[in-house]
């Protein structure tokens, strides 16, 4: 590889040809601030915060997109550079709604941090016309607040990367703002609710709809039995809210914290994942044996399901009829658990902690009320849980480890890996292999479907049957799969699709990491690693071997895919109009 030698603030570095000043500076241990830049998806040089002085360049250049050249000398902190950044920040502030005290992003706002670092005071020097925008509260999963938007367009890039394209720049000049086509409300355009935009927003302009007040209220209400469930990936990410290293597994502390918050029961969505696997594997085997619609596609990810409903309504029969793990747990709590403990389902509040903003949409879907009331009442993101723990004054980092409550626990390795792309497929293959061969197969690792690649394919021989599988994450790849099915060129039998790139560990409800981290650290892999490590360490690694699963079938559902299981654990889909 051709290398380029350059100097950053006098420090000599050698970087591959094509590297930007930002990358070279990183190599030299020099941080250059950025706002709009997101590696590979938003390299637009728009915010101009990363300007530096470089020899051979006219005036200031943007470090994020400007390639270094042989012998280039870069200065990142000269008075000229600092002054430019300062004026820039003051200009941004002059159009920014500065309600920083109570802003959800206070203290993890990238703009706030920069203003602090550069000593930018709200001097009023550039006060002037400031466009006013109404909040868009239409969607169940997020709030769009253009008054706090700095037009870095990271959200637009994330939405484009997701192939969803429902937001972009509208109008121009000082009136430029991020909006939907025809300025419709977000709920009236084909937004899949993935929340990837909220994850990349540097300020409080895009944020999940906060439902924590409802949870506090329920906990405080003595007439309510409030149970909480946590999705597989939360244990691998929640620690980040408290400054712990990315990829730390905090399952025990998380359970302890939830108890201290006052939940009556702390259950694991892993139980729902195991339940999903046995039901889904059964459905798949049934489709294969009885000539059902193939390929069959997983339906755990509500963002993905919503996308399919918008864009491929004619292919919805390919989706497994299984509810998602979140909904299965809710349904089981309000039926089996309620009956067993003699509690009126109306008095149960099921709260779920999810890596996902689309789960807020999912809880309100039709055909998700096994007991006549919604299976799940409130879906919170990892971030919201983090804020609740913070508000409650719980010293998370120093909590002891505690165990989930029975009976909905006894999770398996198969369920844990649900949080990563390929995890559902691997879990399903483990169970399908056993069910079809009638054996307890020792080889449980399906490495071909692991890893963060957006699209993975493999062929497995299971009990003499050749099974072609595909695993896709990110809507761009989901769309590819669907277009292949649509044009008749798909020869897969079973497909796993997750809405967010890399799966739930990179979900739209996960803890925020500033761009300075996102651009240089593979968050998805680090978080997924924690899950695969836990799986490896577990005694039970197959869903159908879970004692809790065995028990619930013995006591309640009778057998996999029974009529009762269908009534409670399965659902249906509807075609959706893209623009309303």
């Amino acid at each position, binding site marked *: 590889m051709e290398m380029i030698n350059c100097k950053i603030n006098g420090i000599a570095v050698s970087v591959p040809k094509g590297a930007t000043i930002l990358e070279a500076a990183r190599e030299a241990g020099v941080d250059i601030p950025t706002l709009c830049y997101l590696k590979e998806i938003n390299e*637009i040089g728009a915010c101009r915060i990363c300007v530096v002085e470089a020899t051979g360049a006219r005036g200031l250049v943007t470090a994020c997109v400007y390639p270094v050249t042989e012998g280039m000398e870069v200065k990142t902190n000269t008075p000229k550079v600092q002054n430019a950044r300062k004026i820039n920040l003051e200009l*941004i502030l002059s159009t920014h709604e500065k309600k920083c005290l109570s802003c959800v992003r206070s203290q993890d706002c990238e703009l706030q941090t920069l203003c602090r670092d550069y000593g930018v005071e709200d001097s009023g020097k550039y006060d002037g016309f400031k466009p006013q925008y109404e909040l868009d509260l239409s969607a169940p999963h997020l709030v769009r607040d253009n008054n706090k938007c700095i037009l870095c367009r990271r959200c637009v890039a994330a939405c484009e990367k997701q192939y969803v394209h429902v937001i972009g720049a509208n109008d121009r000049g000082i009136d430029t703002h991020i909006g939907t086509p025809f300025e419709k409300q977000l709920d009236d355009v084909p937004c899949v609710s993935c929340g990837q935009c909220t994850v990349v927003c540097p300020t409080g302009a895009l944020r999940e709809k906060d439902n924590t007040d409802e949870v506090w209220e329920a906990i405080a209400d003595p007439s309510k039995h409030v149970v909480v469930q946590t999705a597989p990936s939360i244990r691998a990410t929640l620690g980040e809210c408290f400054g712990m290293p990315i990829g730390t597994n905090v399952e025990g502390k998380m359970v302890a914290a939830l108890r201290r918050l006052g939940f009556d029961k702390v259950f694991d969505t892993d139980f729902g994942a195991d339940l999903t696997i046995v039901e889904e594997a059964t459905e798949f085997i049934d489709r294969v044996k009885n000539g059902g619609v193939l390929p069959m596609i997983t339906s755990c990810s509500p963002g993905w399901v919503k996308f399919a409903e918008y864009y491929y309504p004619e292919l919805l029969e390919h989706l497994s009829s299984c509810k998602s793990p979140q909904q299965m747990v809710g349904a089981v709590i309000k039926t089996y658990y309620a009956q067993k403990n003699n509690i009126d389902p109306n008095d149960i509040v099921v709260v779920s902690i999810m890596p996902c903003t689309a789960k807020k949409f999912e809880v309100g879907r039709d055909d998700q009320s096994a007991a006549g009331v919604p299976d799940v009442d409130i879906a919170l993101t990892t971030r919201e849980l983090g804020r609740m723990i913070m508000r409650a004054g719980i010293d998370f980092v120093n909590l002891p480890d505690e165990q989930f409550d029975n009976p909905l626990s006894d999770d398996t390795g198969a369920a844990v890996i649900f949080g990563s792309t390929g995890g559902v497929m691997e879990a399903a293959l483990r169970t399908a292999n056993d069910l079809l061969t009638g054996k307890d197969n020792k080889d449980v690792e399906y490495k071909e479907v692991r890893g963060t690649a957006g699209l993975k394919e493999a062929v497995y021989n299971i009990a003499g049957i050749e099974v072609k599988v595909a695993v896709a994450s990110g809507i761009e790849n989901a769309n590819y799969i669907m277009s292949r099915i649509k044009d008749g060129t798909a020869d897969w039998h079973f497909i796993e699709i997750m809405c967010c790139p890399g799966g739930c560990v990179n979900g739209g409800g996960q803890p925020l990491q500033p761009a300075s981290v996102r651009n240089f650290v593979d968050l998805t892999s680090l978080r997924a690693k924690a899950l695969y490590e836990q799986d490896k360490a577990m005694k039970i690694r197959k869903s159908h071997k879970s004692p809790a699963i065995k028990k619930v079938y013995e006591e309640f559902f009778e057998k996999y895919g029974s009529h009762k299981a269908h009534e409670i654990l399965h659902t249906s889909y509807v075609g959706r109009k893209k623009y309303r």
Partner: protein
Amino acid sequence: MVRSHVLVCGGTGCTSSNSLKIIEALEKEINKQGLTDEVKVVQTGCFGLCALGPVMIVYPEGCFYSMVKVEDIPEIVSEHLLKGRIVTRLLYDETVGKDEIKSLNETDFYKKQVRVALRNCGVIDPESIEEYIAYDGYMALAKCLTEYTPEQVIKIVSDSGLRGRGGGGFPTGRKWALTAPNKAPQKYVVCNADEGDPGAFMDRSVLEGDPHAIIEAMAIAGYAIGATKGFVYVRAEYPIAVKRLQIAIDKAREYGLLGKNILGSGFDFDMEIRLGAGAFVCGEETALMTSIEGNRGEPRPRPPYPAVKGLFGMPTVENNVETLANIPQIILRGPEWFSSMGTEKSKGTKVFALGGKIKHTGLVEIPMGTTLREVVEEIGGGIPGGKKFKAAQTGGPSGGCIPAELFDTKIDYDNLTEIGCMMGSGGLIVMDEDTCMVDIAKFFLEFTVDESCGKCTPCRVGTKRLLEKLEKITSGNGTMQDIDELEELCNFIKENSLCGLGQTAPNPVLSTLRFFRDEYISHVKDKKCPAGVCKSLMSYVIIADKCKGCTACVRVCPVGAISGSVKQPHVIDDSKCIKCGACMEKCKFGAIVKQ
């Protein structure tokens, strides 16, 4: 046998003053008087003297009729075309000598012009490929394809010293040379016809008057850099240009001058038109390409430069209309001929759209190095009403002002840059003593604020803040600190904006601050607008001694701000007055003055 040709301008200027009706009337009258076989009417592109439109020229005599009306047509036909008696009263006065009629080229307006880019405008019928060919059209392309290698073509263009006429002034030959070696499955030639400076219409006139020259030049560029596909990005607001260009493309294709295997050389080249929706920023090369790609017209960072990664990510040469219009002539007449015109680093000619306070509003093409004084006083005919020249603005909203003390500046790229101006695409607006320079800066800034695409912070927010500070100053609320902050912000925007639009947007402010700082100070310190333009800083006052109490002003005032009894001195209520000036115009006694 045709013995007379009547060339009528069909450019946008004359069309808007009804030249199409004149053509219609001419044809009808010629037919009526039985001259159809003897007189041919040709609709041409722009002659340049738009202020005198509609214009026509009758050959072989070369009589130049100006400000012709439909009613004049029967007389022209029966007198001139039938009887051979020239209608002197309709002749452009400068062409009327004592005993003879002077050629148009001897008039002040044309005398110092050298028409290279505009050479066929006003001469040929732009809708006829045959006329273009008759004037050596497509000969340059043929010469390139049969006699020169692509490298030789690039060398000729480089040697000519031609620089981009769209504003930046980048050497055209070098641009081609940078693109040619880049290997790619597809390369493109893009013609930038998104002329957006207020008052500029050079490119429009070339497209309307000589569209084949652009097609020929693009094919030559394609041959030179190895591109087989071209796009012309033209404003949808130029319907005549679009129509004639489309006719020309269709004809060129029909004649085998576009398409596969042009002139049997094995070279393929074809092109199509893309319409712009009127965003000024799309004149910036990367924004233009983004727009062609079907996206919101916004610039992208450079590098990568279009030569490496341009349209659809492929190597692309983008040239402006006027730049391209020079190419066929350079090929045919050689680089030495071209570089013999102009100054050391600015070769050839430049087309300017003359506007503002000047007699001959219109289009002129002058050799580089002509002084501003020559352009304004000689070619432009000076300032009407005996007013004093104050400044000229070049480069539109990206440019700056040349003050009276620099009236003898030789116009070329480097001289203009040195004084904080820029060549720009060629708008040249003349201002007289009645112009407020702060107001002018504000006018241009209003334009850029409106046209900023909103992508980068300095331009999106910064230009708006600049404008607000200027508004503060012109409304009499400015402080000296505002002037300093204005300057600081200008320099910030210039150095930090993403594209040329933002980088040059502060120029009108910086340049007026440089040459007319005292006017800013008057606005701030004395709360006075020396030119009497800024409405908040002046008032209309009735001089009691002169007022006869005729009440004419009362009747004309649209807001009822004037009161007084008949035959008694009147008074203007300043709080009601909207400073429209109607009263002052109406007063026969000179009793109303601006203060």
